[in-house]
């Protein structure tokens, strides 16, 4: 056997592999759509972060007549109470971003825990968890959130919890189906055979191996969170006036959309850009997680014809990637 000792070929030098999620993110970030998505989302995040510092005036300071048109003092005119539109928009982005991020993180964590437990334990545990989540899914999402918020009142933590509660069932379904597949793997069977506790199997064997589908789902959920939070604050259940917030600004100024459209248009454009950017990036994540799209390079014409091998199927799946 000594001969085979020497003959084993050396692969790349031994170094620790970065965790799966970093690999997926890095691969997504070098694709064309990933870059575009990052750029768009990054722009909006930068505006939201730096906006409060850059704002020329205080968001609650009066600068002129209500709905005054753009002028030298107020580039985009004044809002319903005569405050500077630019300053209010610059100051109003942080809340929506923070809330969306927290709500997504909360929803994905809860959903993943429930889904992995249901998928791995199977039997009654699975039934109880999934049927309960089915009931939650049966409610129209925004109505569920409105119901919660209108009972307790417009608390910010509640907005997060409500949005997270909307996400959890959907994330749980994705986590469960990925778990069902991972639990069939021989390396999981092996740990069962020597008797590793179930919670450890879920945490150390299953979870690291379902990271890819969960990341795809997280990207999607972030997109939904942004629009849900914006909707809730538009409806008056998020931040309360006079605090500047994009949803609040749209709502306050919609009555005068014809005399000064800027206070409505600008927040809408910002939210739309953010959503498109996040969406593009999460699509890039999906493709990199599924191994569909290679980094930027010369495109390969597929010599199709007979349906042999996986080439044809991956191509068609690329078109149907979740958006």
């Amino acid at each position, binding site marked *: 056997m000594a001969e085979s*000792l020497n003959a084993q070929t050396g692969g790349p030098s*031994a170094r620790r592999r970065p965790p799966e999620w970093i690999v997926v993110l890095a691969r997504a970030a070098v694709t064309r759509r990933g870059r575009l998505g990052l750029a768009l989302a990054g722009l909006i995040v930068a505006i939201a972060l730096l906006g409060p510092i850059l704002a020329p005036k205080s968001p609650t300071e009066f600068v002129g007549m209500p709905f005054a048109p753009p002028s030298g003092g107020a580039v985009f005119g004044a809002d319903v109470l005569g405050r500077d539109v630019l300053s209010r928009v610059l100051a109003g982005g942080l809340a929506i971003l923070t809330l969306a991020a927290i709500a997504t993180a909360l929803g994905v964590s809860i959903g993943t825990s429930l889904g992995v437990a249901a998928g791995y334990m199977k039997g009654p545990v699975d039934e109880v968890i999934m049927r309960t989540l089915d009931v939650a899914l049966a409610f129209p999402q925004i109505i569920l959130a409105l119901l919660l918020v209108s009972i307790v009142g417009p608390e910010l933590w509640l907005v997060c919890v409500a949005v997270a509660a909307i996400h959890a069932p959907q994330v749980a379904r994705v986590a469960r189906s990925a778990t069902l597949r991972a639990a069939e793997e*021989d390396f999981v069977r092996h740990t069962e*055979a020597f*008797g590793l506790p179930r919670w450890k199997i879920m945490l150390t064997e299953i979870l690291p*191996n379902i990271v890819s589908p969960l990341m795809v789902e997280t990207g999607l959920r972030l997109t939904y969170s942004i629009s849900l939070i914006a909707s809730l604050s538009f409806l008056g259940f998020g931040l309360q006036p006079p605090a500047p917030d994009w949803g609040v600004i749209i709502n306050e100024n919609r009555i005068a959309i014809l005399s000064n459209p800027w206070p409505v248009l600008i927040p809408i454009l910002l939210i739309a850009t953010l959503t498109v950017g996040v969406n593009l990036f999460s699509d890039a994540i999906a493709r990199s997680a599924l191994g569909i799209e290679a980094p930027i390079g010369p495109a390969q014409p597929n010599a199709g*014809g007979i349906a*042999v*091998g996986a080439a044809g199927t991956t191509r068609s799946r690329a078109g149907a990637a979740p958006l």
Partner: protein
Amino acid sequence: MGPLARRGLVLGLHHCDGPVVDVPVVSVRNLRVEVSASAVDVIDGVNLDLQRGEILGLVGESGCGKTTLALALLGYRRRGLRITDGQILVDGRDLLSLSEAELGHVRGSLVAYVPQDPATALNPAMRIETQLLEAMARIDGRRQRRARMVEVLADVGLPSTQAFLRSYPHQLSGGQQQRVTIAMAFANRPRLIVMDEPTTGLDVTTQAHVLDTVRRLCKEQGVATVYVSHDLAVVASLAQRVAVMYAGRTVEVGPVGEVLSSPRHPYVRGLIRAVPDVDGRRDLRGIRGQAPEPGKRGEGCFFAPRCPDVLPVCWEAFPPPVDVAVNHRVWCVRALEDTAFETDVRSPTSPSQRPTQVMLDVQGVSAWYGQSQVLRDVSLAIAAGECSAIVGESGSGKTTLARCIAGLHSDLEGQLSLAGRHLAAGARARPPELRRAIQYVFQNPYASLNPRRTIGESVVQPLRHFEQLSRSEADERVRTALEEVALRPSLVDRYPHQLSGGERQRVAIARALALSPQLLICDEVTSSLDVSVQAVIIQLLAQLQRERGLTMLFVTHNLALVRTIARRVAVMSEGRVVESGLVDDVLAHPKAAETQRLVRDIPRFDPARFSLPA
């Protein structure tokens, strides 16, 4: 039978009788396929000629480029690959100069393909009749198409009854499905048929029948056939000529008898020594190391790093072809040296001297998957300190039995005991020392190691579960375990994907042996490995078994392997043990009908049988 086919019959017979004078119907010239992105060659410099009615066996281990070559013969390349040089002439037409549309037209009519897995090649939602007629869309006239369909179905030995034609693929057996795809390939009377391991998923009896059909059809219809396979025994029983590929090059091409009885290339010699012999005359010997990947093949002969007879000149340039006989070409600088090819002679198993104790006792075990019963009242005793094998075809229940023993399947009735101690159904119901006492090595080394763990972490995980170990103790145990299976200790920091299949399987074996089990269960541990690697792993297991006096249960479908590694064997069929005893007795004088059939239908070849004409 149509006029064309009759002409083919005449030519085919002519070809078999006399010397080859025909112009080849298929000829491949200097074919090169590259990875488009890097211009690294996947296959290069391939030259092949096929006569009418000739079957060429294309043999090689995984990654050698045989499938790439087979697909290129249809003018097809997988995504990311590009054919950059060469010609593929079929009946005078160069496939590589055709447009996609023209290629689409010649596929099916000039060249045809039989896939490896008929279950995925047939559309599960369409009736057999519809699919067959679809394959004959180029034949004019509905009546003519139906007539041809009945004809080809008869050719492949399938009925043309309404019941059969109206059935869906899932209602047919694997062998019937493969016959349907073969019928589709022959339907338009192509000149070249490429078969990509079409019998890999079939049991040996069905495989024997399908091979008979292929042999007869190619001869009768005069179709040139390229039969891709990793199984030398299948090729030996089917082909007239064989081309062995290694690392993207053909290394030896010649008449099947000559190549298999007196191979000239050291790789081919190694390959033949690595094929287990069901009749137990030869001993098994693997080839060390592994084939280089595209782009890492070096300057000289690609086989040089693994070659036992390497010369300094081998490292300088890829060897030119040497004609050692008519139609027999070898790419090796030492091809003309007169060294006789010998295989190792196997020493017969000596009768046991000491009285055997029973390690594992299985009493009246029945097991179910949901509603279906997989094991029916199985009783079995495994002797301590020996290797016993369970052999059977897929679906015979052998893996379920192994899983019941290991506690991976708990829906069972009956008694299991290990060294006198009762084994509960399901590992979680067993005390820790019994869970440790039985270790299981899985079939697929790609799935049995957690891809997110390093090799070291994987090996130490069960150890840490049973013992409190300091970091240095743990490192030491892992190192010892890896050394025992002849792996470099530096692999501890690698991830499974950086290892070859054989290395991964060794890691799985090391992980099991590190726990010093009383019983090691090996479930088809070599079935996903290449023969040369399989031989190395089998040698390793046999050596460990001897040295440690290990009790081993070796589950396999491969009778030839049983002969090599096990002392006792139990043959399973349809959930029952139909025969058991000492391996040499059972295989030499099978009593049960199932065993007789298995022993009879297994494809075999014996280098000594192909004696050269004087």
